[in-house]
């Protein structure tokens, strides 16, 4: 451990090393090399770095990042949340939701209520419909309680109009009665400014600490270069990887026999049924392994909660089946998920007796692709760049002898 201990002198500021490096090295030759000693030397290096001006740098960087966070906060459009409350029969509501929250209906709603004005010139209506579908939530706090329709949109008035339109559509379809009309939100629903500034300060201090460390290792320039290079490579890799969208839907199975739920899932993923889906939607463009691929990309996960799931409002004796389908095409990802959910809830399909299946969450697809996640890609690249730089610094510590003045 002693050689490591002596290499730690390099973490002290250069001016300090010029004055005390030689005698400090001699001192470290005499002290027993223990872990407490190592941490004490590290702590001393940190204090000296801060004393030599890196504290000011840390404060400066933290202030700049905090300022940037504040500016970002100020310029980013906040999402306004409007909520309408309806009283509905859940079965009727689920049946009508397929139509009302369907792509065609949402596209008409966007045009009629003049939603997403800025984006309509450059984003296709189908994409905007998906965006609205992703930002509209219908949920209930209690099983038989009123249903809340929440819509998140960057404009307060638009959020109100959208929430009210969806609520009205359910009322018009005689699936619900309006309890409370949609409110006009006064404040955007976003994290408080203080949280952003605190985040900026933490990131700034972290950056300054890394700078102090790498400055001591004399590798801060390679660190910056490798960090930027890693981020660019991460973004490039994320751009090259084809987009995969994920469709999601949830159905609830009510039965006294838990094993019967497995039969329901098996019937939906039967090879003949999958082959029919492949033919119907021309999936995987004539690939002979299309059925096998669909089997891999389509997952029906059973949520074994025999006492009900408060998140989805399912009661005791109900089991949720979460349908996931990953596909490169956003539209097909939703359509296939919808088709599987529709098959599961189809009353004409023969099932073991005593089983009732109902829709909990109609199919939707996130506007952003599931894979690749560009944030994760760039973050991984940055992390790899920094790790490479740390390895470079450690290699330099061991490869180069410390420049100490010898008597």
């Amino acid at each position: 451990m002693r050689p490591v201990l002596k290499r730690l002198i390099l973490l002290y500021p250069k001016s300090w090393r010029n004055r005390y490096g030689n005698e400090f090295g001699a001192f470290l030759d005499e002290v027993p090399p223990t872990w407490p000693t190592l941490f004490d030397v590290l702590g001393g290096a940190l204090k000296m770095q801060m004393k030599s001006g890196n504290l000011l740098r840390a404060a400066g960087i933290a202030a700049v990042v905090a300022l940037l966070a504040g500016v970002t906060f100020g310029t980013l459009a906040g999402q306004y949340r409007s909520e309408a409350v309806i009283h509905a029969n859940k079965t009727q509501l689920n049946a009508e939701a397929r139509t009302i929250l369907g792509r065609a209906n949402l596209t008409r709603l966007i045009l009629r209520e003049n939603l997403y004005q800025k984006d309509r010139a450059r984003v296709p209506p189908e994409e905007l419909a998906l965006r609205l579908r992703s930002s509209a939530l219908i949920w209930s706090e209690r099983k038989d309680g009123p249903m809340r329709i929440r819509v998140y949109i960057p404009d307060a008035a638009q959020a109100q109009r959208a929430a009210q339109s969806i609520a009205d559509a359910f009322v018009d379809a005689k699936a619900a009665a309006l309890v409370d009309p949609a409110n006009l939100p006064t404040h955007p629903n976003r994290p408080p400014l203080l949280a952003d500034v605190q985040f900026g300060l933490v990131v700034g201090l972290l950056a300054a600490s890394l700078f102090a460390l790498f400055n001591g290792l004399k590798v801060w320039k390679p660190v910056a270069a490798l960090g930027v290079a890693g981020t660019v490579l991460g973004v490039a890799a994320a751009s090259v990887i084809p987009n995969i969208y994920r469709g999601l839907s949830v159905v609830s199975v009510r039965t006294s026999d838990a094993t019967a739920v497995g039969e329901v899932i098996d019937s939906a993923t039967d090879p003949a049924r999958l082959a029919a889906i492949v033919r119907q939607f021309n999936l995987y463009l004539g690939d002979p392994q299309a059925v096998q691929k669909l089997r891999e990309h389509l997952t029906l996960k059973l949520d074994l909660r025999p006492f009900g799931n408060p998140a989805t409002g399912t009661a005791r004796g109900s089991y949720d089946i979460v349908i996931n389908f990953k596909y490169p095409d956003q539209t097909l990802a939703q359509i296939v998920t919808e088709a599987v959910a529709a098959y599961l809830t189809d009353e004409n399909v023969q099932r073991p007796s005593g089983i009732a299946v109902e829709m909990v969450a109609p199919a939707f697809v996130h506007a952003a692709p599931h894979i690749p996640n560009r944030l994760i890609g760039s973050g991984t690249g940055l992390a790899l760049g920094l790790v490479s730089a740390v390895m470079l610094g450690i290699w330099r510590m061991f490869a180069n002898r410390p420049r100490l003045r010898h008597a």
Partner: protein
Amino acid sequence: MNIFEREVGVANRQPFGYSYYVTRNNDPALLVLASLAEGDKHGYAMMEDIERFSSIKLGPGTLYGAITRLEESGWIAPVPSDDRRQPYTLTALGRKSLEHEIAALNDVLKTAAKRLRQA
């Protein structure tokens, strides 16, 4: 300017991390001054001496942090040596400062002892 600064003329120099008058008895700077009051010593000798008289083991980083601050304040000074191990000596300013620190600590101790007796 307080009395201590006026007497020793070291405004803006604070080798002790706390008050001029009352320092904790485990302040590394005070321990180094106390050790050097006996005679010139290099780092390792100081560390052993401090452990002997105070049972406090100062780590290398802590000890040299204190040495750096004390030397910058002019309270200790390096002694010319052919050895890689650099001995230090207490300067006149350092000696006077140590006397003031001891007096201040004594005042605190006497007051505390007196109050304990009265309680």
